[in-house]
């Protein structure tokens, strides 16, 4: 209990210390405090994980009653189980690395202390999210990470693009949150509880219920609830069509791109679905929906990475694509594989981002890859670690990403879920595309000749140790972690207490049955799956195009040109949202304000009634000539009339 509380609340404490009292402490103290906080968190999470591995006991802890309305209990509490601990270890580790890295990256920034306060606050929010034992707190963490993400994307608040991006990120996320909150509402309506344990024990009361949202159509409550929750996840994990905020979020400083927009926050959606697996499992429609969305995202977002020239954006699209992979894994009920890929991805993607950040610092805030090249010699540590990250990302045999991605592909391949065949092929093509854009990035940045004109190569030198140390530390799990944990996590049923897979969706079991150790897994990959060959093909193609500068045959050129326009415009999603949705909403608002509020209600009803009174009175005022004799006459006429009454 104490361990858990310190794990979660020490980053908050440090964040408040640094954020509120930032004026009174030195820069040095601010990073020492926050790093210490996250370090304590990390140690606590490792200790808790260790405890858990020994005792195998899931703890459900009530912190306090948030509010009790009738029989509905809104509580704040923690669920310490395999899933939350695995996530926590990864999050605190990456967060720690990012904290250290930030010392170097943000060294000369005005908002140095603010930044540390934010990322510690983020760590706290994320931990609240994953340790939550109820949907209320989960939603709290969910929104809190959104808030910190908003603040961090707009960290450089003077940049117009940054403040546009953060608003976009928050609002798009809110669209997802609408789904999430409706999902919660459905669950509360049927089960009367927000506590995860109680919800799962009362799933029978929601199963088989029908909801009719629009008249003359009804759906299964489970399906609607699952899809609603998944819409929430789509927002946070940037699945199509709610993905548009993630590439723009790269306006934020690089450390947070690594922490929030690659390793942790964006995976909250994956976590949510994994957490809610007992509910999701009840609806195969929802599962198929998740699968399709995931694989579409994986394929199409990867393609966009091919045409980006901003080093961070390429990685951002890669993140989108990888999130699509994880989602697809959830769609085939291979939650454990999804979370497994989440964890390995967390490490190597953070590594890639931090590596990119290192390049950016070395080139003095240059992000355009067309201005780079040949940095291999100048930035050896960055190069090596970046290479490791890339190999892990493309799934080079033996690297961490290889295991998770291959398991994932196998799971989709073996699944009987609706749409799994299509997904499988999309994901396979995704492997090729992943390799293409990753290798393109690698070749363009580190190979060839240096192309920048305004920053001489001579001035480029390796970044300080606070930057490279996290790279090295992250490189280690990026190589080995996948191989190390595949055995217990996937095959050993580590998640059995936290994730529920219904008997008819046990496709992964076939794969587990034929698994005989890491080495055989690698050998099996060469035999059983085309993925590895696609990956090698990808390396070959990209070597030809971007290293050897081998130009494509003419007939492809026009086709590629056309595709490139589509890709550069990001499939026109932004156009759709900005020019069609936003503009028309504003136009509608103006219209409503002008015609309904100002004209109809105010002019016609409010001022109209006033005007009617005025018109009547302007007629009657003519009776008031102010003529004394007339007044006297009226007086006298009335006197005569009353006298007539009196005498009659």
């Amino acid at each position, binding site marked *: 209990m104490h361990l858990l509380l310190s794990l979660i609340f020490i980053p908050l404490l440090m964040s408040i210390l640094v954020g509120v009292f930032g004026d009174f402490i030195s820069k040095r103290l601010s990073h020492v405090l926050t790093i210490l906080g996250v370090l304590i968190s990390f140690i606590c999470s490792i200790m808790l994980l260790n405890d858990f591995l020994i005792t195998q006991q899931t703890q459900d802890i009530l912190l306090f009653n948030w509010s009790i309305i*009738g029989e509905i209990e809104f509580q704040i509490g923690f669920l310490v189980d395999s899933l939350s601990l695995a996530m926590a270890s990864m999050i605190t580790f990456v967060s720690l690395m990012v904290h250290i890295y930030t010392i170097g990256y943000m060294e000369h920034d005005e908002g140095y202390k603010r930044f540390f306060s934010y990322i510690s606050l983020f760590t706290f929010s994320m931990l609240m999210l994953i340790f939550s034992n109820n949907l209320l707190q989960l939603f709290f963490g*969910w929104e809190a990470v959104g808030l910190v993400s*908003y603040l961090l994307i707009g960290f450089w608040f003077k940049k117009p693009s940054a403040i546009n991006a953060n608003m976009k990120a928050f609002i798009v996320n809110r669209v997802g949150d*609408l789904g999430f909150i409706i999902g919660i509402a459905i669950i509360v309506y049927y089960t009367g509880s927000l506590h995860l344990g109680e919800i799962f024990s009362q799933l029978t009361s929601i199963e088989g219920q029908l909801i009719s949202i629009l008249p003359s159509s009804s759906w299964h409550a489970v399906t609607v609830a699952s899809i609603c929750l998944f819409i929430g996840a789509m927002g946070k994990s940037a699945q199509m069509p709610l993905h548009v905020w993630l590439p723009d979020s790269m306006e934020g400083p690089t450390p947070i791109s690594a922490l929030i927009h690659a390793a942790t926050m964006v995976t909250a959606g994956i976590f949510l679905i994994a957490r809610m697996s007992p509910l999701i499992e009840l609806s195969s429609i929802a599962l198929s929906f998740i699968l399709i969305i995931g694989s579409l995202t994986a394929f199409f977002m990867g393609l966009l990475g091919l045409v980006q020239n901003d080093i961070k954006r390429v990685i951002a699209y890669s993140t989108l694509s990888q999130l699509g992979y994880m989602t697809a894994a959830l769609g085939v009920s291979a939650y454990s594989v999804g979370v497994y890929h989440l964890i390995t991805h967390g490490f190597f993607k953070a590594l890639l981002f931090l590596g990119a950040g290192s390049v950016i610092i070395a080139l003095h805030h240059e992000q355009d890859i067309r201005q780079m090249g040949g940095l291999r010699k100048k930035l050896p540590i960055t190069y090596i670690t970046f290479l490791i990250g890339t190999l892990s990302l493309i799934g080079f045999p033996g690297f961490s990403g290889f295991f998770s991605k291959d398991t994932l592909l196998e799971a989709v391949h073996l699944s009987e879920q609706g749409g799994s065949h299509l997904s499988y092929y999309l994901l396979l093509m995704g492997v090729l595309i992943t390799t293409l854009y990753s290798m393109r990035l690698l070749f363009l940045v580190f190979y060839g000749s240096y192309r920048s004109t305004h920053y001489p190569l001579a001035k480029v030198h390796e970044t300080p140790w606070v930057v490279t140390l996290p790279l090295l530390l992250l490189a280690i799990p990026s190589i080995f972690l996948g191989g190390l944990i595949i055995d217990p996590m996937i095959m050993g049923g580590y998640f059995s207490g936290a994730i529920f897979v219904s008997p008819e969706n046990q496709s992964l079991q076939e794969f587990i049955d034929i698994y005989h150790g890491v080495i055989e897994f690698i050998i099996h990959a060469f035999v059983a799956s085309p993925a590895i060959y696609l990956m090698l093909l990808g390396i070959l193609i990209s070597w030809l195009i971007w290293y050897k500068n081998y130009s494509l045959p003419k007939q492809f050129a026009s086709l590629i040109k056309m595709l490139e326009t589509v890709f550069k415009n990001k499939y026109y999603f932004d156009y759709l949202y900005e020019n069609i949705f936003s503009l028309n*909403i504003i136009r509608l608002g103006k219209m409503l304000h002008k015609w309904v509020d100002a004209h109809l209600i105010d002019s016609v*009803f409010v001022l109209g009634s006033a005007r009617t009174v005025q018109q009547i009175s302007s007629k009657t005022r003519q009776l008031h000539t102010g003529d004394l004799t007339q007044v006297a006459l009226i007086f006298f006429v009335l006197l005569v009339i009353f006298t007539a009454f009196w005498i009659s």
Partner: protein
Amino acid sequence: MFSSYLLSSLVWMPIGFGFLHIIFNSYKLSESLAKIFSLAFNIPLIYLGILLYQQFDSNNPAFQLTERFAWMPFLNADYYLGVDGISMPLILLTLLLTPAALLAGFNSSKGKYSNYAGMLFLLEGMMIGVFLSLDALLFYFFWEALLIPMFLIIGIWGGPQRIYATLKFFLYTFFGSIFMLIALIYLYIKSGSYAIESFYGLPLTETSQFWIFLAFFIAFAIKIPMWPVHTWLPDAHVEAPTGGSVILAAVLLKMGGYGFLRFSLPIVPQASADLSMVVIVLSLIAITYIAFVALVQSDVKKLIAYSSIAHMGFVTLGIFSIFHIDSFDLSLLAIQGGMFQMISHGLISGAMFFAIGVLYDRLHSRNIADFGGVINAMPKFAALFVFFGFANIGLPGTSGFVGEFFVILATFAVHPLVSILAGTTLVFGASYTLWMIKRSIWGEPSSIRIENLKPMDLRESLVLIFLAIGVLALGIWPAMLTDLTSASLTELIQRLGL
């Protein structure tokens, strides 16, 4: 002495202070002394509030600490005060927000601070009177009487269009109240007494219930305000001085919601149930339609005023949803949501208007286009402003979340569409608030005046920090409010036979 006449003290002490301030003004008391007095006067009031909180038994749904004396025996009207779980939080809110409104007027009262403080104290006493009155005639007396100080606050210390705004405000609300008076007189004739309790459970025919509901509805809907009788609010807010806006948004609007809970629901339950769908639809229109309108406002006070209307939509939605919810727990959740939203909106919108006042005092503009990049010169203010912005959006952890969350959860039982439409506020609320924040707070300083803004002084920071703590506390531990109201609201629902 105060403890035995606690409620009367709460009503009359501020009124006495108000008159004292007006007397001060005629004796040409110095401005700074008047300021000190006005703050010092709050100490006994807050103390009374604490006493009230201590003596209040939140498990008892009935009216407590009642005081009853014959007032107008020939009309059977009594001087009858009492407090229950519904009025309790509103009184605390009034006591807390009045100092904020007083502080807001320190530099913007056009050299007539003493009068300004006098008006606010009068207003405070009368608002507490509205919430405490258990006699309909007394209620009506306070309800109407408080228009006068409010009218004067807007009319004297307001902006350039203040005469138009005050007249609109006055006529709109006065128009509504007339119908309420008619309904009250009818009920008096039926029951033979003006005590509100005697109205409860009167055997009224369906037709008379309908008309009484309608009369109450007009009065309370204008006050709260609901679409389509909301147009007085933006004008009144825009022209009102900061303190006036704070009180108007924080407390005055709540009188409408309070009226629904105290009058409409228990007196005419049948008509309330019959017409609840109309109210729900109007509330949903308020939530969605107003969000669109708020999005395009260029005047920041107008924007917040419109967002107030949308937020008050949740109050009426929560209150009237209970007729369509089968489960008792969810009914209670809905009505608690409405109640919570009232208090939370009081804190948040009060703080928002105060914050806008801080900017207005420096820039003399309310136009969003004239702001921009405020964070560069006033980082602490920007932090607090963004905080309240997020509270306005309803971020979990702030009080703004709780009410919306409760209502959205509960209204799913009415119909999924109701819940979804109510939920759109998540998106639209975020859109207009963040867009406003983006244009006013973030970015490069838009002009030299923004660059030279002087940072917040102690007075301004204290008020905002204090309100921020309140917003956070209610967001982190809403039980302190829901426990207070729970018994009374439970009884209300049971009275309705749901």
